[in-house]
């Protein structure tokens, strides 16, 4: 019996895409699902070290952390650095719920001029730069699964999905990329 559990990255080694849509699995990150009322937003923002967005479809970044607006009292906070998100939220003293979902989610990075077309192969959102500018995020559907989509650049996206759905997401993206110009 192994003495130590080793962390397996769900999409380790996965590769795909075309010249115009490059796909790669994101490295592992810390994540919390954060729920809090309006009155807790400012103190939580202070202890998390970023300003929690309160406008629909917006995100905020600071250092290695990004907070994504999912609903009027709900955020997904991703930390690609040291972590400590739950502790930071707890130290605020404000009434909130922070659930560590680091291992529930995994992410796929999509880059290239055809990235929005490839995503629209399974996602009904309007991904034009006007409707979904850089920094926009939304919980939506991608094919049969629920995902959180973040636009990290004009031609780059981060797709957060549940780890057990990640092979489906990657496979559908790989197929859709073949059709994207």
């Amino acid at each position: 019996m192994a003495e130590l559990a080793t962390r397996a990255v769900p999409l380790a080694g996965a590769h795909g895409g075309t010249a115009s849509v490059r796909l790669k699995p994101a490295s592992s990150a810390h994540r919390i699902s954060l729920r809090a009322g309006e009155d807790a937003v400012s103190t939580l923002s202070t202890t998390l070290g970023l300003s929690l967005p309160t406008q629909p479809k917006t995100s905020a970044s600071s250092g290695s952390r990004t907070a994504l607006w999912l609903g009027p009292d709900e955020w997904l906070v991703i930390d690609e650095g040291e972590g400590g998100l739950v502790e930071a939220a707890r130290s605020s003293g404000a009434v909130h719920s922070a659930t560590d979902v680091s291992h529930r989610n995994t992410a796929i990075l999509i880059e290239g001029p055809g990235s929005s077309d490839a995503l629209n192969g399974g996602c009904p959102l309007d991904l034009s730069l006007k409707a979904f500018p850089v920094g926009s995020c939304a919980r939506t559907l991608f094919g049969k699964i629920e995902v959180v989509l973040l636009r990290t650049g004009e031609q780059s996206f981060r797709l957060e999905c549940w780890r057990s759905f990640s092979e489906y997401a990657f496979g559908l993206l790989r197929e859709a990329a073949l059709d994207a110009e």
Partner: protein
Amino acid sequence: MLLIHCPYCGESRSELEFRWAGEAHIARPENIAEISDEAFAEYFFIRDNTKGIAWERWRHIHGCGRFFNTIRDTVSDKFLLSYKAGLARQPVPGASEPVEGDAA
């Protein structure tokens, strides 16, 4: 594809992200333990099933997760208005007087 306006996200999104959640503005009786079985059945089971203008609850389940209310024409499937949960029953846009005169 049908687009449904979510009052919390502030934009119209694909119907795929939404779930229907029954008739809107059904208030739970304050004295639920005291009402008769008939009154309870009326509250709990009986729905209007309107053909035409209907006030409905919808949930943006694959988006912001919020419940909200809509006015929808069940014949044409056209959404006339979406408004936040907790607001009183809204008048039909463009109508001179409330349909069916229900003020609940």
